């Protein structure tokens, strides 16, 4: 086992680009030059509308994008000093579910319908501890099921996924992901498919596990409320680009990028009454017709000709708060704070 040095981040993604090759002529750019870090025990939220490259970014970490079509033209994903884009499939299998785990959006379809919960969790244990005795593995699994606060672990062990609710299944997924005590847990919209009360329970459970296990978390969502509750830091993505990044409170209080501002403005707050909520005009363009330059330029009220040329350099708004927007240059000293 590799020990993380105390000073370096647990995960460092540098300049990651992800392309999808659709046919011989068409290459779609799903993610462009995204960089971010996740420190030990830290929770990073990735925020954005559907189709912004959030999931693709996360899937890249464990190389779970469709292997046949995905190309990684540039970038590095450094985890515990190893570049995950350049390790062998065997090494990657050793990291998946062991050092880095992942849970997904749709709990109802994420479990294999033909095996019991117990069998699937046992598989996860035995994949990474091949020598473990069956009884010991079973003990571990029962413990894990109990730790996600499911009553009667013994009964759940022999239950098939079709007999469980979405909330229960997501707990089982979390139990499975946490079995090997991973250093990093990637959650791709884990609560989007759940109803609000169950969502709150699952979030609370994840926060609890995070405290207990000191696991770092990457939390992908389009829900600002969830980010606010979960994330120490937040990265806002649009059109495969990072537009803004910083501490959650700082970004939410002083959003600098027009897209972040739009997102926050369109989120209802408790003291917001009366008038219609503002919206960002238009919708996320498909990968096929993503605008040149800043991908947000066709929906942005501040867009100039410059925005259609290149993507701007990231500017430091305050300490550990970055945003990439040409409008920030004009605002100069103000640092985009309005």
């Amino acid at each position: 086992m590799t020990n993380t040095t105390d000073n370096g981040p647990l995960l460092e993604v540098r300049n990651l680009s992800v392309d999808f090759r659709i046919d011989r002529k068409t290459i779609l750019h799903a993610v462009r030059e995204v960089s971010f870090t996740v420190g030990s025990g830290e929770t990073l939220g990735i925020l954005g509308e559907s189709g912004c490259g959030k999931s693709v970014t996360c899937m890249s970490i464990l190389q779970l994008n469709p292997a046949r079509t995905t190309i990684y033209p540039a970038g590095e994903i450094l985890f515990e000093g190893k570049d995950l884009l350049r390790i062998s499939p065997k090494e990657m299998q050793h990291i998946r579910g062991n050092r880095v785990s992942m849970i997904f959006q749709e709990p109802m379809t994420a479990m294999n319908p033909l095996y019991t919960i117990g069998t699937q969790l046992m598989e996860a244990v035995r994949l990474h501890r091949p020598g473990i005795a069956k009884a010991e593995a079973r003990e571990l699994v029962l413990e894990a099921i109990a730790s996600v606060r499911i009553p009667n672990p013994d009964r759940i062990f022999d239950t098939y996924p079709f007999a469980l609710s979405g909330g229960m299944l997501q707990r089982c997924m979390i139990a499975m992901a946490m079995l090997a005590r991973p250093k990093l847990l990637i959650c791709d919209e884990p609560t989007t498919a759940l109803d609000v009360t169950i969502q709150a329970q699952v979030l609370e459970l994840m926060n609890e596990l995070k405290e207990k296990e000191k696991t770092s978390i990457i939390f992908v969502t389009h829900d600002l409320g969830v980010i606010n509750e979960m994330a120490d830091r937040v990265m806002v993505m649009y059109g495969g680009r990072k537009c803004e990044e910083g501490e959650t409170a700082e970004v939410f209080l002083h959003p600098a990028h027009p897209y972040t501002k739009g997102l926050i403005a369109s989120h209802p707050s408790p003291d917001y009454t009366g008038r219609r909520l503002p919206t960002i005009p238009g919708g996320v363009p498909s990968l096929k017709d993503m605008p040149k330059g800043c991908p947000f330029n066709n929906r942005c009220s501040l867009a100039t000709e410059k925005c259609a040329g290149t993507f701007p350099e990231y500017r430091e708004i305050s300490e550990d708060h970055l945003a990439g927007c040409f409008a920030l240059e004009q605002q100069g000293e103000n640092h985009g704070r309005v």
Partner: protein
Amino acid sequence: MGKYIIKRILYMIPMLFCVILVIFLIMNLTPGDPASNILPITTQQSVKDAYNASVGYTGPLGLRFLNYLKGLFSGNILSYTTRENIFGELAIRFPITLRVGLIGFLLAAIIGVSLGILSAVKQYSFVDTALTVVAVFFGSVPAFLIATAGVLLFSVRLGVLPSFGLNAGIKSYIMPVAALTISGIPVISRMTRSSMLSALNQDYIRTARAKGCSERRVIWNHALKNASLPIITLLLTGFAGVLGGSVIVEQIFSLPGIGLYMLQAMNAKNVPVVMTCALLLAFIFMVAMVLMDIFFALIDPKIRARYK
């Protein structure tokens, strides 16, 4: 589950009875009679009537039906043409069909399923495209053409395999078996490919990868088991069909199997033979259906839960 299977087996009795009844009615109510089909066209009507009476194709329908049932239970039904016991004839012919069908079909199943998995795992690769082209080709060419081409090449040109009959031992089985196998593979491999592909696109496959399964484990333990229900359906119905005798293959290679037997009986309006063969085929098919249900329940817990 056991109770359900017993119920299914008991249901077979009335179903088989219905099959006999329907075939009996079709055979007896359609125009024509054994004598006209077998004897020369110039034969006098009185001779024909005498012939029909001698084989039992006279009298009220109900009585004829009862006579057939009596013969069935006593294990002694005479063929109109040979005047031999049909069960004796079946005992010679069925094993031939069984041998050719079983070997041919098992080969087709093994090769077809393997190629289908390969195609799915390497989707859109050169291997997949090549297999698709070959499968579409052999799937579109009728089996009798493949068989005839085989005869031309191996019997006429090269002279290494007999063109008909079963007198050359194992050699005489090679071409019929190959014809069955080759005509079976395309359907099986295409079906396997598409069910494997839809299984491989499911979320639980991503979960399996995310927890650290090797690609081999993902394919064999997670995808194939989920893809197997439609494959089993195809294999069992196909196998039941093959046991009914491949008429084309038996005709081309002059194999005295059950398919040819039934075809000849139909031409001769040999009612008891057609009925007995149809009964046997229906029985085989029903057994295959029960087996299918058992397999389904073994594989899918959701189906199993329904039978409890």
